[in-house]
């Protein structure tokens, strides 16, 4: 999913965090970032797997992809506004 053409600006490792921790970590990264930044969230929380894409859509950012890894998900987001 994540290719070399997608330079990652920041990786948020929220694997030890439960819902809504990973979403709140992503929100913090979005707040601190610039338009065009690509943020990767690593999350092992099931609720966040559905909440984060919903939030990205509502907040007007772009979900680049969700990739299942070994015991966690890698969620890649582009800050659009």
């Amino acid at each position, binding site marked *: 999913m994540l290719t070399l053409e997608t330079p990652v600006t920041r990786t948020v490792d929220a694997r030890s965090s439960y*819902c*809504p921790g990973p979403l*709140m970590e992503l929100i913090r990264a979005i707040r601190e970032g610039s338009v065009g930044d690509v943020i990767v969230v690593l999350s092992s929380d099931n609720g966040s797997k559905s*909440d984060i894409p919903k*939030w990205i859509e*509502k907040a007007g950012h772009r979900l680049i992809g969700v990739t299942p890894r070994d015991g966690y998900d890698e969620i890649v987001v582009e800050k659009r506004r």
Partner: protein
Amino acid sequence: MQRVVIIGGGVGGTLAANLLVRKLRREIDRHEAMVTVIDAKGEHVYQPGFMYIAMGGERAEKLVRPERSLLDRRVTLEVGTVSRIDEAASRVELADGRHIGYDQLVLASGSRIVPEEIEHFDAEAHHFYNPTAALRLREALDRFEGGRIVIGIAGMPYKCPPAPLEVAFLIDHELRERLLRDKSELHYCSPIGRAFTIESVSEMATPILAEKEIELHTFFNVESIDPARKVVGSLEGEELAYDLLILVPPHRGAQFLVDSGLATGAGWLPTDHHTLQVGGRPNVYALGDATDLPLSKAGSTAHFEAPVVAERIAATVQGREPDPKIANYTGRVMCFFEVGDGKGTLLRFDYDHPPQPPKPNRLWHLGKLVFNKTYWHTVPRGRV
């Protein structure tokens, strides 16, 4: 001499100190151990009462008692503001220049509100996270004669997660009593995709919001306030107009924890879920709001964490293994939840078991009132 130093005279710090002297009475009497609480003001404040200043006729002076009056006489109380922890020298530095050495350290320094992080918060928004603000909210509600009330959350995590929902329900009740409900709109803004972080509680609260015609706005992370247009804006790009704005202010951990290198960012301490040790340090513990645990920042959390910390430290001082039945925190939390109309429910949960709130009834509402009144004689002294 083993020196146990506890920073913070709130629920967690006070209870941990009293439980420790119970376990270490012999060692303390022989001058082999001492327990010291450091508190900035030497006052113990019952923070859950603040909401009732705004919503229930509570008075601020009833919510404060001298910390000394709640501590066992064997506990030493030092009143002073902590400026830094010098881990290399194992000592706590106070702003007035004093140093207090420790062998075992308990960080019960709580959380603090930082409304100034959102421009115009202080002038435009009301809250109930200190007595002054709660009284100001009460006065604003007294003046309210109808219009749009927006209730939201300006940062997570925050103290007492159910509180803003409780306030929404209680305001709805009050407006109906005052025959103002038909002239009012109530809006509740949640930062996440549902009404409450815990799904089972959200499932209980969402129909109550609907029944009371309180409009729920999800994914609304408060970012800005425009005082000229009287609108509150979200990070997600939405705006809501208000006549009365009530926001949970952003919260942070104690600044000295960041300055001392024990915490980063917002100041929450990296805390082991079960041992409550901080960042793998064998002799530094955290409890209550100060931790980064995925649990409610609430007195109840500190209440159930204090026995774990006390048992672990007592075992170290006494050179024995800690009792595994007491020394591992399971994430236990228990708190009352007001739903208005004189009814309440109870949230009881731990890391592995989400709450199954009983149907709201008058008993749990009365339970909360009784708990608030009897708190001084029970929790800090380790009687419940």
